[in-house]
């Protein structure tokens, strides 16, 4: 009985804990064209990646645009020199920009979807004594879906806004049965219920176009919190002892997926074949709730006749719940720079090259206490290019663009010295690299 109780508890605890995650596009960006500019596109984005960077940009599109893309990211991240087994990400990106005219006003509808090619969503068990790369392990394995509407009331102003969908989970498990020494005496029934409820968070933006060479952008993304809830209750009897039973009630509430408020301001300046842009994003990480789940576990032995006590059956004392531990995170400012230039402008095609740099200071403090959510600063360099074929009639009345990018991120060494010399995990050193690439095919109709 005691072993059964322990196994049940351990299995349930293993099931209920989940790891932090956030939107995959926060990590790798959206759309090869915008990723190739290091995401410094808030002021002048106008393809379907505007659904993430600045929805106002949708209204600048000159015609219907369809984007198909693929991105891949390999993470070579280690803790104490041991590979942390952070899985690569491969994702299909699909985007749509559908502009129209309403009276004097130009407007556009946009949609963007990032679909992981390995799994729709992922939650991995958090094991207390196994430090993990909190922002890269499962953060990227989520579906991203955003829809937006933008309007251009004046030539110098575009406005946009919309919502992004995410899905928390609400799981319930019920076990009923009888444990016995003989297999024939054992009986078990279980019922499992899972709900993936959608939540929505807003994003809005504007672009100011005071001059044909200059554009200024401002965007806001709302915070969101995915809270996973696991309820489990078990009612297990012991064969041959009619009035002896084990009753378990478990409630685990974990915050597995948090995205902070984000405000980005940027500008872009174009001069001849060159374009430079700069973005600065404020990320409200300090509001990050604890990733340690709140667990309430009630385990009782129903033993009115004292049979269990006579057999020496006791409830293990070490079964107890968790309580959240403050994360101690800090707000961050993320600067992004990019340069783009047209290097070829021929009769059939136009070629542009681009590159950029991003610095993301880690919002996580050095892990000196009981938590082991490892994260490092990240320096990212991207380079990319794009070939545009715009004389394709009669095949297409419009143009076809093929964009590509290569992505390299360096996560410099970070030391995590534990306050306690007898911490079960001990001091940690984290470091790593990430390599990625992506392509995007855009078909634009005039």
């Amino acid at each position, binding site marked *: 009985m005691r072993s059964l109780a322990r196994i049940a508890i351990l299995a349930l605890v293993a099931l209920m804990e989940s790891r932090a995650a956030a939107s995959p596009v926060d990590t790798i960006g959206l759309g090869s064209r915008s990723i190739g500019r290091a995401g410094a596109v808030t002021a002048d984005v106008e393809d379907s990646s505007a659904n993430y960077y600045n929805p106002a940009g949708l209204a600048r599109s000159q015609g219907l645009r369809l984007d198909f893309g693929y991105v891949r990211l390999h993470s070579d991240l280690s803790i104490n020199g041991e590979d942390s087994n952070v899985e690569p990400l491969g994702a299909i990106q699909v985007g749509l920009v559908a502009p129209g005219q309403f009276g004097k006003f130009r407007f556009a509808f946009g949609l963007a979807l990032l679909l992981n090619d390995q799994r729709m969503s992922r939650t991995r068990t958090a094991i207390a004594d196994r430090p993990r790369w909190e922002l890269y392990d499962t953060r990227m394995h989520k579906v991203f879906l955003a829809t937006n509407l933008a309007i251009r009331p004046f030539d110098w102003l575009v406005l946009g806004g919309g919502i992004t969908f995410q899905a928390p989970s609400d799981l319930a498990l019920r076990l009923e049965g009888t444990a016995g020494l003989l297999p024939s005496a054992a009986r078990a029934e279980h019922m499992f219920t899972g709900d993936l409820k959608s939540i929505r968070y807003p994003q809005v933006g504007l672009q100011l176009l005071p001059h044909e060479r200059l554009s200024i952008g401002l965007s806001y993304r709302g915070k969101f919190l995915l809270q996973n809830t696991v309820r489990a209750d078990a009612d297990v009897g012991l064969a041959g002892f009619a009035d002896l039973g084990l009753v378990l009630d478990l409630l685990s509430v974990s915050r597995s997926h948090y995205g902070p408020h984000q405000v980005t301001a940027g500008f872009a300046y174009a001069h001849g074949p060159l374009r430079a842009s700069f973005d600065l994003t404020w990320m409200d990480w300090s509001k990050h709730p604890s990733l340690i789940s709140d667990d309430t576990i009630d385990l009782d032995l129903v033993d009115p006749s004292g049979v269990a006590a006579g057999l020496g059956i006791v409830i293990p004392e070490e079964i107890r719940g968790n309580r959240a531990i403050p994360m101690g995170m800090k707000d961050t400012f993320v600067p992004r720079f990019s340069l783009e230039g047209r290097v070829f402008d021929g009769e059939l095609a136009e070629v542009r090259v681009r590159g950029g740099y991003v610095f993301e200071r880690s919002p996580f403090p050095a892990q000196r206490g009981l938590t082991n959510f490892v994260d490092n600063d990240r320096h990212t360099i991207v380079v990319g290019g794009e070939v545009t074929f715009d004389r394709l009639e009669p095949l297409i009345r419009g143009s076809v663009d093929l964009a590509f990018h290569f992505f390299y991120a360096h996560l410099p060494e970070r030391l995590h010295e534990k306050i306690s010399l*007898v911490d079960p995990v001990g001091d940690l050193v984290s470091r790593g690299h990430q390599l990625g690439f992506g392509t995007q095919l855009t078909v634009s109709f005039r």
Partner: protein
Amino acid sequence: MNRLVLAAFALTLASCSMLGRESEFAKQISTSGVGPFRPLVAGETGVTGSQILRVADAAIHRGSVAGEVLFVDLEDDAGRAIHRATRIGRCAGFQAPVLALGATEAWEGDHVREPFALVREDGSIRVYYAAEGGIGVAEAERADAPLVKSPDNPILEGALSGPTVIEDDDLGTLLYFEEDGRIHAARSDDGVRFERVGGPLLPLLVPDDPPADGGVDRSEVAHRLPGAVVAAMPTGRRTVRLYFAVIHADGTSAVTMAASLDGLEFERATTMVLSGDDVTAPVPHLGGDDELTHLTFVRVNETTSTLHGALSPLTARLPGHPDLAVGGCASP
């Protein structure tokens, strides 16, 4: 041109077909020496189960590994003395031991016991041991060379047990030993002449919730047989790790540890590093570029006491472990 566009489109679609596969979880990490320690398996020891030395009709009270040699406190019909055994191939276990050090001086009484082997930077070795009148030391040029007792013996007088020594550039040389069921320290400049430092290093702990009448009393009544090692964590911080046996009021014996930056102020681990209520005499040594902590320990029952090996971190594997599937450790 049409072909080019189609080829680009095909490339995009083809890249979508690269399906991933599930990766393993990251390995468990423990850099503080707290463990938990995993008892070795027969394939790793080359002996029996986690036993690293098997001697018929003899009780083993403590073992200390120095490179390829084990110094062991062995008691048989001939009496109690310090023996030496050499490693079996690449195994964690050792061959039949031979006598290395016996009682020869008046202060030692009728036997010497509880050896702790310290390998020095020049490859020479010092074996600290306990005897009736205190703690002594014997030296040798190599671990397998004859031991010569120091003329300064006893280096510390009294009813003392379980000597263990660390030698560190920053901390100097510190000797830990047991006296009246508590662990004490002494400091030295040369590893031979020691001066006591302060009182007992660690308090005896009493559970928050005392047992009801007739319940099991896990109050600590003594600390026994310390074993120390200096180890660096990945950040470069070096700590003195002191493993020791905890004797409870109910008569059980468990093994835990404490750690210190200066070798004198210790922080006690809250959990036991080894499972079992019949374990004692933990002696650590480092391996695998100091990433592995080996622990020799003694398992005591009513009839005998045997010497075993354990390892941390849990996921580490020694030659001969079944997971490695590369043959036994005894083969060259």
